[in-house]
């Protein structure tokens, strides 16, 4: 039986050039389906990765209870002081905690790609603001000087938005600021931010004695339990304390889920179109090979090899489409930089990320199209009356 299957499959595949344009149309249709799907999935994966890499599990973040994002949160100075005395925090030689009370504001920026206004995050950070985060490196210029109208900007923000080049003066709200440094943050969401000295930001934006979040470096991930218990046990706090990792996971899930929920239905709608194309191609294939199929059946070949041969042809065309779609998606989208609105209503710059797992999903969808598109024509090939087939 295997010999029969191999022989019929070989004959089928060798005859594809006779149906070149029709076969090519199926390959292209399936390829487009996969490319569209992977563009969405890689966007979601890139966004998720950017936010996921932003959070550490040994950094805690405190927000107002019920606040889902930094921009909605408010913390008073008294609460900041209480948190500084909390257990489980890393402390320096003087016993001061490695922590940063921060203000998170929205300012305007101009997108390079569309020349449209977009919300950018301006973060006022304490003197330990960089130390509390991992992987922060000044790659150009220097850190802002305390008490000055200076800012440092993230690498991604510089790439996507105009006017933040080193040395430039930018107007944010009512004040002028000088860009004195560019920083990297291991591709995390912080690279989409503008950082300035907290007291200056509080003063210029009339937010004296008000903070929005507090970040604290923990002695280890397990210390979070102590910190949460401390927070819950003091009625003056009653904040929401979680690991930075969990915070960003929550932030990423809504947007990445939305992207995926857009991507899959669109890809499936397109897949239905590709399926019609595949069915048409394979029915034409069976029709054009009817004499060959009937001749083989007359010689003594069974119906099953005709079934398998047709199905393999369909799967092969779909697989070629899937691989080409994935290849083009990779060439076009992998590493492609884009920005979108994050949960704090500010732009998050991220890179599309096409992982092997996503490519697998794309090719699996292509094979499903090939399988369904080939199934009915394969059954027709297997059941075709020999006499009718010999008449062509």
């Amino acid at each position, binding site marked *: 039986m295997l*010999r*029969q299957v191999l*022989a019929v499959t070989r*004959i089928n595949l*060798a*005859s594809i050039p006779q149906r070149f344009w029709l076969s090519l149309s199926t390959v292209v249709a399936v390829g487009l389906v996969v490319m569209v799907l992977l563009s969405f999935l890689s966007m979601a994966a890139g966004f998720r990765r950017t936010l996921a890499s932003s959070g550490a599990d040994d950094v805690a973040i405190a927000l107002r209870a019920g606040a889902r994002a930094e921009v909605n949160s408010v913390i008073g100075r008294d609460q900041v002081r209480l948190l500084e005395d909390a257990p489980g925090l890393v402390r320096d030689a003087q016993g001061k905690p490695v922590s940063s009370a921060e203000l998170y504001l929205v300012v305007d920026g101009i997108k390079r790609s569309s020349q449209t206004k977009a919300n950018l995050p301006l973060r006022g950070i304490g003197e330990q603001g960089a130390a509390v985060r991992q992987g922060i490196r000044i790659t150009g210029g220097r850190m802002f000087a305390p008490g000055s109208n200076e800012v440092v900007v993230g690498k991604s923000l510089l790439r996507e938005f105009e006017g933040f080049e080193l040395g430039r003066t930018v107007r944010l709200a009512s004040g002028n600021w000088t860009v004195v440094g560019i920083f990297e943050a291991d591709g995390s969401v912080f690279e989409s931010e503008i950082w300035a000295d907290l007291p200056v930001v509080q003063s210029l934006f009339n937010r004296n004695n008000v903070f929005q979040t507090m970040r604290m470096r923990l002695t280890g991930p397990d210390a979070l339990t102590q910190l949460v218990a401390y927070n819950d046990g003091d009625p003056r706090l009653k904040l929401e304390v979680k690991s930075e990792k969990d915070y960003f996971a929550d932030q990423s899930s809504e947007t990445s889920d939305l992207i995926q929920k857009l991507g899959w239905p669109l890809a499936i709608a397109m897949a239905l179109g590709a399926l019609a194309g595949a069915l048409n191609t394979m029915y034409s294939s069976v029709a054009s090979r009817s*004499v*060959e199929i009937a*001749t*083989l*059946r*007359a*010689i*003594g*070949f*069974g*119906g099953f090899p005709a079934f398998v041969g047709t199905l393999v042809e369909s799967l092969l065309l779909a697989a070629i489409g899937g691989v080409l779609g994935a290849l083009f998606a990779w060439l076009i989208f992998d590493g492609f930089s884009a920005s979108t609105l994050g949960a704090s209503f500010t732009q998050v710059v991220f890179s599309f990320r096409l992982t092997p797992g996503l490519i697998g999903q794309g090719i699996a969808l292509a094979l499903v199209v090939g399988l369904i598109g080939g199934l009915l024509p394969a059954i027709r090939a297997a059941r075709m009356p*020999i*006499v009718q087939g*010999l008449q062509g």
Partner: protein
Amino acid sequence: MSDLPLVRLAGVSKGFVKGKDAITIFDKLDLAIPAGDFVAVMGPSGSGKSTLLNLLGGIDRPDTGEVQVAGSRIDALSEGELSAWRAAHIGFVFQFYNLMPMLTAAQNVELPLLLTRLGKADRRRHVETALTIVNLADRAKHYPREMSGGQQQRVAIARAIVSDPELLLCDEPTGDLDRTSADEILGMLKALNRDLGKTIVMVTHDPAAARYARRTLHLDKGHFEEKELAA
């Protein structure tokens, strides 16, 4: 030629429905063809010559009656059993050769052997023998498009005989050939019958072709008239 019938039809009826009309091709047809015979079947278009060949080859079924070929009641076999039976007992030669255009002559001839248990070396040997019988050993690696009609039909004959079936069923084997090529093919069929004892049933419109057979059956209105031709 043996007296034992290799082919026996008993009370075979066959018809089809065209629109609202039921058309009868055969009505209780009887036929016996002994092993080693070479029978030409002639008759007007629509007389059922090809249908007869299809019934004998097990690619069509009678409405009623028995079809016994090479010891098997083939009208009672399942589709799967019929496929295996055809592979073992029948060689088909078609008017338009029905070669696989993407396969070489040798690969085309090898096809029936893929249904056997023969190994690669044995299959190659059988293919060489069959191609030698039809005088095409030197064209083994040629594709059908590189050969004339007569050569393609010789490849088809090699494919029909390569697994050594008892019965060759030839449907207008010279219908697409010029006279010279047709005579060559008919001479080859005659030699296969005479020298290798192959039983041949050949449908033809051509009286000249029919003269190569041992006898001719004229099929008309569902009945045979027999005429002995050659010794």
